[in-house]
């Protein structure tokens, strides 16, 4: 049962997603679901480094934006199909993750955090000055006409995001229960002790920054098709970075399910608040929730639930 539970759940989600595209026809639902799934992938990716090893990445938006701009650069050159765009974006962002990790992960954790902030601004400046992809004005991308058997392109993008999200959850779950994941947890708890017991700490950290970068890049790759107009300001939006930290923190960082729970709850709440009240207030609430959760419930929702179960048992 235990071995089959997760693949069965994934299959059920895919079937439910397909049924959703057949039954619902209000495009808003697909847009909202896309936004939530995108945030989910970012949160799961952030947690692979932040939650498993304890190294904070403030540059999530930069990885995301580089993913989106990889797509744009390729699309300007040729009509590259979407799966290839996703692969290319994952490759580029994985390499950036590896590079930043290699430069700064040998130092104290705070330097990595500051370096990721720094990287975001450097990359944004580069893109602002790179006229081939539109520079500071941004660029428009036409959505292709073909969308397989789906009713509209946004329905297809929703399914693509759903598959990417399931893939990233599967990777994160496998990592957390593997030998590698136990090594990462050892780094989080005590890096010096881990190093002394023969855990190859630098290599493990580099693996997780690379995986994190690749996932964030993949999440950004379909973005130009989704919004059809991309400028550096929206792609490097700080809100993306805040969300990818807040969602795992609220859900709980120690368990692979934490960012999933956090992203689904916070993401859905954000959609509701944006529609019913205002989008500025929504942004403010995420900040407040983040601060409240990390001061009052540092284990997140998953941690609270686990504690509750332990008490009852």
């Amino acid at each position, binding site marked *: 049962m235990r071995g089959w539970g997760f693949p069965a759940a994934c299959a059920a989600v895919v079937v439910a997603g397909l049924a959703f595209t057949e039954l619902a026809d209000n495009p808003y639902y697909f847009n909202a679901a896309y936004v939530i799934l995108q945030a989910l992938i970012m949160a799961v990716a952030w947690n692979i480094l*932040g939650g498993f090893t*304890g190294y*904070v990445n*403030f540059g999530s938006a930069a990885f995301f934006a580089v993913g989106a701009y990889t797509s744009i650069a390729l699309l300007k050159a040729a009509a590259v199909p979407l799966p290839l765009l996703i692969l290319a974006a994952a490759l580029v962002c994985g390499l950036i993750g590896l590079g930043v990790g290699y*430069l*700064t992960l040998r*130092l104290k*954790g*705070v*330097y990595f*955090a*500051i*370096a990721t*902030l*720094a*990287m975001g*601004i*450097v990359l*944004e*400046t*580069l893109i*602002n*000055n790179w006229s081939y992809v539109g520079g*500071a004005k941004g660029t428009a991308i036409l959505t292709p006409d073909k969308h397989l058997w789906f009713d509209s392109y946004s329905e297809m993008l929703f399914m693509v995001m759903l598959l990417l999200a399931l893939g990233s959850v599967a990777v994160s779950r496998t990592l957390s229960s593997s030998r590698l994941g136990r090594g990462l947890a050892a780094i989080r708890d005590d890096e010096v002790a881990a190093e002394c017991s023969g855990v190859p700490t630098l290599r493990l950290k580099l693996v997780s920054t690379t995986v994190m970068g690749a996932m964030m890049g993949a999440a950004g790759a379909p973005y130009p098709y989704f919004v059809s107009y991309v400028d550096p300001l929206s792609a490097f939006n*700080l809100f993306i970075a*805040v969300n990818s*930290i*807040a969602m795992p*923190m609220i859900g709980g*960082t120690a368990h692979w399910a934490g960012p999933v729970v956090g992203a689904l709850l916070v993401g859905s709440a954000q959609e509701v608040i944006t529609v019913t009240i205002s989008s*500025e*207030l929504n*942004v*403010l609430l*995420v*900040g*407040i929730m*983040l*601060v409240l959760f*990390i*001061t*009052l419930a*540092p284990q997140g929702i998953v941690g609270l639930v686990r504690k509750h179960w332990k008490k009852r048992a």
Partner: protein
Amino acid sequence: MFSADLFANAVVSGLLLGGFYAAVAIGLAIVFGQLDIVNIAHPAFIIAGSYTAYIFNSTFGFDPVLVGVAAMPVFFAVGVAIYRIYYAAFERTGQESLSGLAFFFGLMFIIEVSLILVYGVDYRLVSAGYATGALSIGFVDLPGRMLVPFLVALALTGLIWLYLSRTFMGRAIQAVAQDRGALQLMGADPIRIKQWAFGIGIATAAVAGALLIIIGPVEPSVGRQYIGRAFAIVVLGGMGSIQGMLIAALLLGVVENMVATFYGPSWAPAVSFGILLLTLAFRPAGLFGR
């Protein structure tokens, strides 16, 4: 293309800018350099200082620098309160690396978005007599809106340096930075000293914010550009050394201004971050570190 007076003007205005950067970074030099607290919300407090100066300047016509100085006690109290929360929630439990960082990130975000909610994303400015004039020495121009912040920043830096090196409390702050355990053995309470130092760090943001809004119009998200600058200066200056910080600030100001003059202002933001990344990669102890 290249001319001597353009070059001289770029150097001089770079030095003026760098002096102002010292005021931006000095709070962080204390908080991050001495206390090892990664307060990435520091630039957000500076923006809060700018808006304080803006509010009192536009409604009562007070001088922005005076407002900045007068606001210091309030900022100090806020800083003390934040340190109490930070200590109780993260430092005491050893959670500062992950949760503490995220805490300040969330704080930065809350300050920025609250300002946007109240004042919108319009640029705000202050009016002061000296901000419009300019002093000319030979072919070098010294605009008042740069010169006044430069002088105030130097005065602030000098005072903080005197405070840290000459007074009892200032030396206690440096002692906390060097060896917390030894300080405790001497019967001093490191938490009280740290909360005092954190308060001073935040208080400098009130003045730095007033200077920022004299130099040019301010909107809430401008603060983000100063995160990299402030950290680059503190790391380059050797973490917590006030003299090193001042030299690093002047250096960054000149280099950034050179890049803006000769390559175009759109490249300027990348300079500080580039310097920061290179410093972290090749000389993490800073220019003057051991």
